[in-house]
């Protein structure tokens, strides 16, 4: 064999090893549960409730991230202001903070001991050990993903397109709605799906903020520690299937070329 052929073979082998390492455990998990295990998981009321809670809280967190994150992303993409780079860096912090640490920080910030927590509680919103705590943890870890995706999506839209729309009679808001938003929407949607997936997969901060009611990841951990591996598998498979469905959706939505 010639040298280029050798190096090609080496590259292919190394790549194949990593692909196997990623796919192997996932396939093993799917095979282990089988259709019977899946049916069992679906009949299990606790599992069904946990999945439903996960989906609704993740959806709520994503909706909040969209509402608060899209205007911020637009500002970051379009309006130069002092400290913009610093703010951008701060927004990416949750990505590098270990999740239990994020959970503890949120607990201190939103718990009954803090002014914020007390204010929320007196307004009737119990966060810690309640559903809002799950949403708060999910929002904390997933919002940066959405903001950076939306920011990039806005950046891809040439500001001159908005200017043309303005000379054609649009107010700034109308030009945004008719030109910028439609052109950035695929990128924003892809970011929202990734943020949603990040919320569904969150465990470390949720387990500290709101152990009960249990989201799917907490339930799986709970069953594993209380009853052992076999008890955790069916719910785990269900969550994996949910993630795979989301993965497929992101592939469809993501703008061409944005990998």
């Amino acid at each position, binding site marked *: 064999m010639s040298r280029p052929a050798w190096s090609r073979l080496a590259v292919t082998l190394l790549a194949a090893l990593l692909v196997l390492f990623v796919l192997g455990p996932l396939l093993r998990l799917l095979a282990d549960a089988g259709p019977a295990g899946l049916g069992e998981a679906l009949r299990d009321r606790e599992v069904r409730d946990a999945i439903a809670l996960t989906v609704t809280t993740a959806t709520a967190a994503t909706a909040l991230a969209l509402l608060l994150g899209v205007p911020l992303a637009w500002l970051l993409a379009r309006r130069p202001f002092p400290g913009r780079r610093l703010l951008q860096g701060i927004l990416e912090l949750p990505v590098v903070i270990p999740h239990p640490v994020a959970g503890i920080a949120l607990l201190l910030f939103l718990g009954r001991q803090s002014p914020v927590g007390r204010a929320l509680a007196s307004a009737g919103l119990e966060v810690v050990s309640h559903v809002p705590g799950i949403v708060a943890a999910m929002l904390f870890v997933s919002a940066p993903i959405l903001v950076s995706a939306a920011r990039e999506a806005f950046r891809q839209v040439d500001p001159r397109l908005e200017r043309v729309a*303005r*000379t*054609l009679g649009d107010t700034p808001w109308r030009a945004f709605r008719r030109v910028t938003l439609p052109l950035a929407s695929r990128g924003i949607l892809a970011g929202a799906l990734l943020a949603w997936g990040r919320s569904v997969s969150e465990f470390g901060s949720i387990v500290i903020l709101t152990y009960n009611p249990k989201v799917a990841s907490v339930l799986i951990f709970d069953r594993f520690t209380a009853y052992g591996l076999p008890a955790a598998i069916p719910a785990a498979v269900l969550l994996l299937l949910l993630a795979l469905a989301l993965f497929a959706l992101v592939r469809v939505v993501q703008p061409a070329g944005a990998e």
Partner: protein
Amino acid sequence: MIELEGLTVRVGGFTLRDITLAVPAGGYALVIGPTGSGKTTLLEAVAGHQRPARGRIRLGGRDVTALAPEARGVGFVYQAYHLFPHLTVRQNIAYGLPRGDAADRRVRELADLLGIAPLLDRPIGRLSGGEQQRTALARALAPSPRILLLDEPFAAVDPATRHVLRRELRALHEHEGITTLQVTHDFDDAMRLGDHVAVLAEGAIAQQGRPEEVFRYPDSAFVARFVGSGNVLAGEVRLAGAGPEGAAPARFESGPLVLEVLAERAGPAHAVIRPEDILLSRTPIGATVRNRLVAVVERVERTGPVAHVHLDAGRPLVAAVTAETAGELALAPGDRVHLALKATAIRLV
């Protein structure tokens, strides 16, 4: 009517300085200048996308300096067209029109006028450069703006298309009677399209006037070089004696080349000499002409009916002769030729 008065615009580190320019109603003016001279910034200021630091903008007699772009009634065509990629040709053209039958008729009218009617339902991604250009023009014209601003409209099309588009644009200008301000780096556009031309250099207007006037009487070396007025020589004027009022015979020295000129004052200057004003001959030329020189032919360029003869007369000079004359003289590199040049044909700037 477009009136700019002492307009100063700062964008990033760049400043457009003290621009004063008037385009009469229905007129066609061009601003020409090299890349980076501030042409696009000027148009964006007129359209309201850049806020001027000083000066006033009046459109159709109305002061619009403080108005938002959507309140100015201008059409804008960018160099790269900037068509809305998520819309069809029809939706692009109709963008600035209120929905309804009148809009459909206007889209149809413009599409017919610009020859893009068959493309109306195409997505933007499948248009050629020329088709995109026509679509962008139709979109800008659809709301019947009083002012049309064009940013290098021919920069991205091939020469053949450019020719056709220039003719169409001029016809369209007549048809719509719209006051037009175009920026370009191509003086040819100005000669063929404009009633008025302003030459922009590093953010300020170097000269403006009718295109032939600017071409024939450039008042700086920069303008002469940029519009291709001909030979531009750097040198020094020395007056013959204590100069009387007005132009007087003087000497212009550019290194070894010394010319008799008419000058008003001494000092460093540039001499602009049009190639067709230099007479060429194999034998010495009539004694009535003040400047008689001997030069060596370096090369001869034939372009259609005109031949450009590149000469070394101590300084490089280019002379233009008819192809016929070039044939009769049978000039070859290395030949010595006689030149004659009237003092009045040398423009000092």
